[in-house]
């Protein structure tokens, strides 16, 4: 065999192998694409379109839009120094009875303009930040909103100390309105901010009931703010937004474009071409992700008490597809617990406010929670941990209302799961 013949034979073999590899690549790519389409169709049949033009809250005319007031108040917030912020966090997380120390009073006064504007939140019932959460770089001022919720908390405690329960009720309403301002935002962090922003006013509400008697008008105002925050549940809209965002991120990656999204810490110029090259693997990972996300959304929207979520172990390093899909779903099941804790807190607060309103009208608390509906509540809210109403018991002139929290719930966190009112 001559040298030329050997070279030609080598070329033919290499080209044949390349052809086989290309056929395999295309086949895997098509198969992956079909699997994605199948999983997506199943999800869309249950949770609506995943291919909307934009991932944002429905638009609201500017004069009616609370989000604009929130953004304006957030712009006025003094974020404070690191020391001030850590002092506030420490103060808020202390469950003991307390008075606002002078240093924090000064800090609160530096936020007087923002607090004054926050009192107007209640004047607007609709809210939309008008942000497309699929793109990066344009987000509502979450950090400043969190700072504002802390400033409102300090203002509430100061009003309780000064024996001005109606003013305290007004600040609690402002804090709850700040929280519910993000209730329609289809974004995970928006909903976590909503939960975090509701914690301080709910804690302050518990303290208000322990230390003073708000009037009927103040209670009605709080009741409206609580009811507003009930729907949609934060984790339902937050998880759905997260799944839609991940689906969008996968689609962008598969197309070989990566400049539109913040994918990872990988150097962006290489992400696009590499993702396009490994598209069949990405598609398999996306199909697996959509399957797991669907089960997670079913768990979130399903009956309570919820089913147990299997705690699967970390996939081995060579299980590339499992690792890729897990990178998007890891820990999301634990967020469902956080959402249920929030719903339980909200249910307890709504019931306690309704019980106080009942007492103002009837001079005594009812013997049973059923007496509150439909006069004070449209229905008796459930504790998601048990699937039934929180446990209510008369206790002398007062009552005890118990809810159950998840294992991860900090035992010292306020508001506590047990509301005990003695009068």
């Amino acid at each position, binding site marked *: 065999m001559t040298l030329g013949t050997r070279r030609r034979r080598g070329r033919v073999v290499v080209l044949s192998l390349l052809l086989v590899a290309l056929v395999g690549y295309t086949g895997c790519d098509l198969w992956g694409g079909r699997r994605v389409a199948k999983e997506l169709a199943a999800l869309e049949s249950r949770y609506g379109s995943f291919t909307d033009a934009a991932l944002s809250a429905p638009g609201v*005319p*500017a*004069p009616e*839009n609370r989000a*604009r*007031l929130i*953004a*304006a108040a*957030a*712009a*006025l917030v003094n*974020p404070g120094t*690191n020391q001030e*912020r850590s002092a506030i966090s420490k103060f808020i997380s202390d469950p003991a009875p307390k008075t606002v120390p002078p240093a924090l009073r000064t800090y609160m006064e530096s936020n007087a*303009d923002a607090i004054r*504007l926050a009192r107007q939140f209640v004047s607007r019932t609709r809210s939309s930040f*008008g942000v497309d959460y699929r793109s*990066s*770089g*344009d*987000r*509502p*001022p*979450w*950090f*400043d909103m*969190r700072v504002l919720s802390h400033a409102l908390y300090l203002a509430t405690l100061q009003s309780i100390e000064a024996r001005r329960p109606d003013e305290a009720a007004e600040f609690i309403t402002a804090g709850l309105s700040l929280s519910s301002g993000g209730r329609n935002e289809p*974004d*995970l*962090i928006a909903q*976590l*901010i909503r*939960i*975090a922003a509701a914690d301080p006013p709910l804690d302050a509400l518990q303290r208000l009931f322990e230390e003073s008697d708000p009037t009927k008008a103040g209670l009605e105002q709080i009741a409206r703010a609580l009811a507003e925050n009930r729907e949609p549940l934060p984790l339902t809209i937050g998880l759905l937004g997260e799944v839609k965002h991940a689906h969008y991120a996968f689609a962008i990656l598969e197309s070989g474009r990566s400049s539109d*999204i*913040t994918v*990872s810490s990988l150097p962006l110029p290489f992400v696009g071409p590499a993702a396009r090259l490994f598209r069949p693997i990405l598609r398999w990972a996306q199909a697996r992700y959509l399957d797991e996300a669907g089960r997670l959304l079913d768990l979130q929207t399903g009956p309570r008490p919820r089913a147990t979520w299997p705690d699967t172990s970390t996939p081995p390093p060579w299980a590339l597809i499992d690792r890729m899909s897990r*990178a998007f779903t*890891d*820990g*999301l099941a*634990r*967020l469902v*617990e*956080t959402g249920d804790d929030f719903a339980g807190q909200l249910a307890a607060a709504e019931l306690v406010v309704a019980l106080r309103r009942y007492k103002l009208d009837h001079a005594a608390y009812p013997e049973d929670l059923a007496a509150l509906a439909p006069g004070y509540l449209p229905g008796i809210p459930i504790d998601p941990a048990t699937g039934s109403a929180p446990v209510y018991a008369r206790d002398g002139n007062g009552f005890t209302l118990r809810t159950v929290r998840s294992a*991860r719930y900090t035992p010292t966190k306020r508001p506590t799961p047990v509301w005990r009112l003695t009068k």
Partner: protein
Amino acid sequence: MSGRDPIDRLRSSKGEWPLPSEALRARVVAMPMRTAAIGWADRAWFSRTWRLGMAAAAIGLVAADVWVASGDGPTRAIVRDDTERRTLEELVRSAGLPEDMAASVARRSLAPARASALDRDSLITGGDR
């Protein structure tokens, strides 16, 4: 046309090379000398001053960059972004997400820049955002 190599042909040629005529020699000697065209780029490139100047400028730019990074303006912005990112990250982590995913969610949720207090009225009444 002969297929022989011209070099071979020259080597095998008989006799001396003919000398140029006196007239040709005189004409060539009488032609004006033309100096080589040296442009400004050549002058700059071979100039010691230019080289030292470039080195000094490079050192100056690096120093200015370091100085600006340690100044008030940029540092404040970086610190604020970092505080914001860490706050959001902690919030997401406390809600139950693992560290790396919390970092990723927080990173994509940073606000672009703080709205000025002067923008308050347009924010409230509906100026374009």
